[in-house]
């Protein structure tokens, strides 16, 4: 649909793939096509099992080794990155793309201090000394509103609350100023008030840097408030894509309508 349209930072074109199982090959993504508009926040919504997380991981080249691509491409900077090997991907990851995961405390290394992890991420892509990286790291923590950053740098992930850990993960993802930020259900599992804070922070960071963002979620309320474009997925297929307002108020696809209805979205937004 939006194959290699200009104005897209990244385009997914007819991407398909699945897993080899003892009883044959099972498709999990089927002919997925959409684009991520530059400097816009695109939401990918769907129920559990729609394949949205797998899609995000595929964009980063982090899908499980048992996942096999059967067709299509992922276009970025004029190349099909779905064909990249790990070494090529390593140059992109962290530097061009970054990903924030759902369970922040599990995603952080429990035996290495938070500061160390930030410094490592920073120095992986920029030629800076340890001292400089430390300053940059502290600056990032301040940017994500972590109080007392200097002290926090020396602490370990288990000493952070869920919301704080999510902020740390955002700092980690953004420390090398990537062009694309993918967020996989960043607020699921957090308290409602914290959720709002985190989303506000994300929108703030993304818009102030002109970043492209891709938000994976099943929470339509968040989508309505923050996103520019929406991609609706169901069982590995894209059902509908379009601007946020259009999708949420005048959905054409039956499944999208069903989704909106069952999430009582219409009632809430009326």
């Amino acid at each position, binding site marked *: 649909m939006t194959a290699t349209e200009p104005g897209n930072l990244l385009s997914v074109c007819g991407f398909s793939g699945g897993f080899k199982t003892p009883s044959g090959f099972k498709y999990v993504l089927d002919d997925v096509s959409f684009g991520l508009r530059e400097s816009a926040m695109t939401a990918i919504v769907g129920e559990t099992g729609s394949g949205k997380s797998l899609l995000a991981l595929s964009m*980063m080249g*982090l899908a499980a080794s048992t996942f096999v691509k059967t067709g299509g491409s992922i276009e970025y900077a004029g190349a099909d990155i779905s064909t990249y090997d*790990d070494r090529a991907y*390593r*140059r*992109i*990851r*962290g*530097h061009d793309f*970054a*990903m924030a*995961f759902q*369970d922040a405390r*599990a*995603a*952080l*290394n*429990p*035996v*290495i*201090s938070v500061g160390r992890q930030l410094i*490592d*991420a920073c120095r*992986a*892509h920029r030629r800076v000394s340890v001292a400089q990286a430390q300053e940059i790291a502290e600056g990032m923590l301040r940017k994500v509103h972590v109080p007392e950053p200097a002290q926090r740098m020396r602490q*370990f992930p*288990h*000493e952070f609350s869920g919301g704080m850990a999510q902020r740390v*993960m955002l700092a*980690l*993802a953004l420390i*090398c100023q990537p062009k694309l930020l993918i967020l996989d259900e960043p607020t699921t599992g957090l308290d409602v008030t914290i959720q709002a804070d985190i989303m506000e922070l994300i929108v703030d960071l993304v818009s102030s840097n002109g970043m492209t963002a891709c938000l994976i979620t099943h929470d339509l309320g968040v989508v309505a408030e923050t996103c520019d474009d929406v991609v609706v997925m169901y069982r590995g297929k894209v059902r509908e894509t379009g601007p946020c307002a259009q999708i949420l108020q005048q959905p054409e696809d039956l499944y999208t309508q069903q989704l909106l209805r069952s999430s009582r979205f219409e009632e809430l937004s009326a």
Partner: protein
Amino acid sequence: MAVEISAPPPRSLRSLRGIAVPKFVSVIGRRVLAAMLVIWGVVTLTFLLTRVFGGDPVNLFAQPTSTAADREAIRQRLGLADPIPVQYVHYLRDVIHGNLGTSYMTFRPVTADLLNRVPATAELAVGALIFGVTAGVAVGVLSAVFEGSIFDRASRILTSAGLALPQFWVALMLIVIFFDRLHVLPGPTGRLPIGTLPPPKVTGFYLIDSIVTGHLSTFWPALRQLILPVLVLGYGVASPLARGARASMILALKADYVRSARALGLSRARTWFVYAFRNAMLPVITMFAGTVAWTFSGTVLIEGVFGWPGVGQYALSSLENSDFPAIQGFVLYASILYVIVYQLLDIAYTFADPRIRS
């Protein structure tokens, strides 16, 4: 062999009978107390086993023509005439003073005999542990990183074999191959070839002493004598460690935090050998205690085969001769050493895992 980690240390200042005591003193105090309790249990168990169930050692000293009075005299001299509880108290008192009795065979104090032989076993055990731990962890980690490769499959076969192979048999077979057939390594004549004199004693470690005292000519022969026993013992140490390290590393490599490391574009080396490795090593550290215990048993067998004049051989000969004080002394020494090592490893674990520290 399962090893349990002790409870996390208390959070606040503890008061010992109303006096505030800094946290780490009470932590160390608890550890020492726990260790002493275990050692006391071992001492008691050893005593019960030998005095209550053991044969009557009087027969070792008495002659067929001895009268009942003679036997009674011998019993008195050996301290076996008193009722068991009294003997127990005497035994405890002796042990606390470092007196482990007098050997029935050598008539020398057991403590002195043991201490004499410790350097020989230590040189062997330390060499085997260094070799075994390094090789085991390296092989395990690399097997996990290159899971499914030929290296992985070969190492899995080798480590499985290492767990199943009887050590003394491997030792004998290697002696046949390398000494008998290929003539590249010396035979099982102990710490030095026959006719070579040991260097003057500084530490008791021939390798160190030969360098420190300038008797460099004994360094190479001593080293050559060490190769096979260290190899065999080290192989036994490495095998379970390699398997544990591999399993642990495979799990770590699948963890979320490794996925994050990859997502951030960290180099492969750093992802594997720092981010995954530091987590994978935590369960392996708990295995070390069992490894050390195993090394004790191993030295008994290996010293026998290689004619190594260490504590293990002492244990063997005292067993053969029913030399009870020597046996008791040896078991006690081994248990105390093991308990100390276990506590040290436990402390090391708390440093390695920040989640336990707080």
